[in-house]
């Protein structure tokens, strides 16, 4: 490294663009996190919950039928869908909730898109005996009703956010506003590798368990590093967690799959890194879908977890440096992949994760049989069954 980076910066991206009301709290979180990180007690408690509550380590599964069918690279799935609550989100929530406890907080708030992060937060709040409120865009409470009810079952209060375009970004706005008005007893559990420093770093660290395990598992199984890692990117938490331990291995290609909605070249897309430009929003300098005046775009994807107009600052930097590549996957491609992996491997994967599977279908046939792709299945797809049926014109009378 030539120049000493300002803290919380990834190249030109990152930072702490947040109202002064929250700055003292951010300082406190940063200090406490740095202590906790190096505290063996904290790490022990974290590992214990990950292993004995969340069902880690997750499997690295060799998808032989799919590898054979595509006729190229060997495909391995990192099975975050098998975690308790059904997605990678729990890894991060356990970490942040432990931090909240260390800070003496008694109330957790969170935004959620697909509902997976909300469910994970509500789950840990229940386990820790904390109160919990979840902010979710109205579009998403409508299309993810099952998860809304799950959160309520877990004792959380779910706020349906009706401002703006009523999706994930608006839920983040609402959660930030709530946080700014009540920092004393409240911890904002951010659900992706976004927001002001130290959140992107913290979320990356907590999600890095994915690649730490995957690296050891693939070395044990094949004796060598994989050729490519593929993961879907909303804000980028499962992807950065999947990339982290391989970033310094230049032979490992890193590929992030964004939601292109109805197409990267349409305005019904969420393909931030393909279409966006540098901006400042939600506490960070990063890449955003926005107009030339800096107004943030309304974005679209079939996937409630991926339709976010920005991306975490570390991804923006990995994209700028060329270390990782980012591709757009359309609704159609993702839905096809959702059905394909169900039929060939017997796995119903989340529609978010299906974006990564769709890209694996494209790239594997072009690779040799002795090459290896690890694709992160960030979550399971039970929550999506109703909306996929609807997409296919099937009325299953939910």
């Amino acid at each position, binding site marked *: 490294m030539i120049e000493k980076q300002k803290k919380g910066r990834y190249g030109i991206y990152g930072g702490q663009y947040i109202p*002064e*009301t929250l700055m*003292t709290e951010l300082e406190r979180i940063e200090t406490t996190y740095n202590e906790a990180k190096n505290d063996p007690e904290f790490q022990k408690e974290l590992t214990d919950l990950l292993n004995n509550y969340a069902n880690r380590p997750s499997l690295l599964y060799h998808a032989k039928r799919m590898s054979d069918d595509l006729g190229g690279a060997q495909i391995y799935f990192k099975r975050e869908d098998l975690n308790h609550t059904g997605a990678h989100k729990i890894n991060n929530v356990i970490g942040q909730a432990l931090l909240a406890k260390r800070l003496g907080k008694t109330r957790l708030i969170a935004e959620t898109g697909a509902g997976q992060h909300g469910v994970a937060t509500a789950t840990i709040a229940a386990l820790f005996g904390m109160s919990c409120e979840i902010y979710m865009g109205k579009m998403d409470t409508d299309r993810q009703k099952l998860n809304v009810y799950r959160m309520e079952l877990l004792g959380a209060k779910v706020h349906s956010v009706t401002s703006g375009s009523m999706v994930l970004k608006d839920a983040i706005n609402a959660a930030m506003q709530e946080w700014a008005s009540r920092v004393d007893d409240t911890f904002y559990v951010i659900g992706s590798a976004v927001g002001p420093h130290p959140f992107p770093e913290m979320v990356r660290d907590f999600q890095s368990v994915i690649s730490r395990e995957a690296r050891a598992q693939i070395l044990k199984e094949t004796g060598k590093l994989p050729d490519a890692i593929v993961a879907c990117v909303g804000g980028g938490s499962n992807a950065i967690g999947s990339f982290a331990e391989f970033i310094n291995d230049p032979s490992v290609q890193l590929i992030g799959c964004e939601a292109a909605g109805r197409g990267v070249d349409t305005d019904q897309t969420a393909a931030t890194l393909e279409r966006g430009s540098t901006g400042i929003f939600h506490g960070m300098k990063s890449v955003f879908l926005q107009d030339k005046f*800096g107004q943030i775009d309304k974005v679209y994807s079939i996937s409630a977890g991926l339709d976010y107009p920005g991306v975490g600052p570390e991804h923006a930097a990995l994209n700028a440096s060329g270390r990782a590549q980012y591709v757009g996957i359309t609704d159609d491609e993702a839905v096809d992949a959702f059905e394909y992996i169900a039929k060939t491997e017997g796995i119903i994967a989340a529609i978010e994760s299906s974006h990564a599977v769709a890209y694996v279908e494209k790239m594997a046939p072009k690779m040799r049989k002795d090459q290896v792709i690890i694709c992160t299945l960030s979550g399971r797809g039970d929550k999506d069954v109703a909306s996929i049926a609807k997409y296919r014109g099937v009325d299953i009378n939910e």
Partner: protein
Amino acid sequence: MSELAKVFQNKKAFIGFVVADDPDADSTVKNVVALAEGGADLVELGIPFSDPVADGPVIQEADLRAFKVGVTPDKIFEIVAAIRKETAVPLVFLTYLNIVFKYGYDKFCARCQKLGVSGLIIPDMPYEEKDDLAPIAAKYAVDLIPLVTPTSGHRIEKIVKHATGFIYVVSSMGVTGTRNTIKTDLHQLIQQIRQYTDTPTAIGFGVHTPEQASELGAIADGVIVGSAIVKLVAQHGTNAAPALKKYAQEMKAALPVLSAE
């Protein structure tokens, strides 16, 4: 002394806020003139942002009204030019950093200077993130108005030490909007600020009644009213100027008079 510091010279300042282009350009010009005629010493013009995280529903709705008539930064600069033909009242912009960033810091500040906009209030640009913009703003004599909040604590010294223009003292936690009671010990907060600087202070967030103006005016060098004025604009549409003038008169009259005047 900067243009803005003069606003507070020998008097307690009344500062009014309107969203630019709410409900349209002509009304904004009339509203700013009316506030000035009613006694406002400084007017803040809000530049709408799609995701105003620091603002409550009243200002969010005003932003939407402005978007409806196609507000852009350039249109707002035209509004300012029209205001300047009618009144010399000091002006500052309140907006989010992305708007200024996308326009280009240099180009934006240059236009501010040319049109007589003396300062910028940017709620999502804390002390730690001002280094890119600060030298450019200084080059064009545009003051960056820092915000101090009830939670600033040990941060106050570095925030206010080199502050120019004035210091925006946020009365309460949370977002903009009128409040019936302000719980923060503002007297103590202002004392803390004054340990480190002579730059004037103005209290905002939740201020709306003449009683508050009189009480807070005794503590700080000025009071800022946003949502209460924006509500009047919402109520009266394109004919809000008379109500705004009357409101400014009432608020100004309620402020304490400095004996040295």
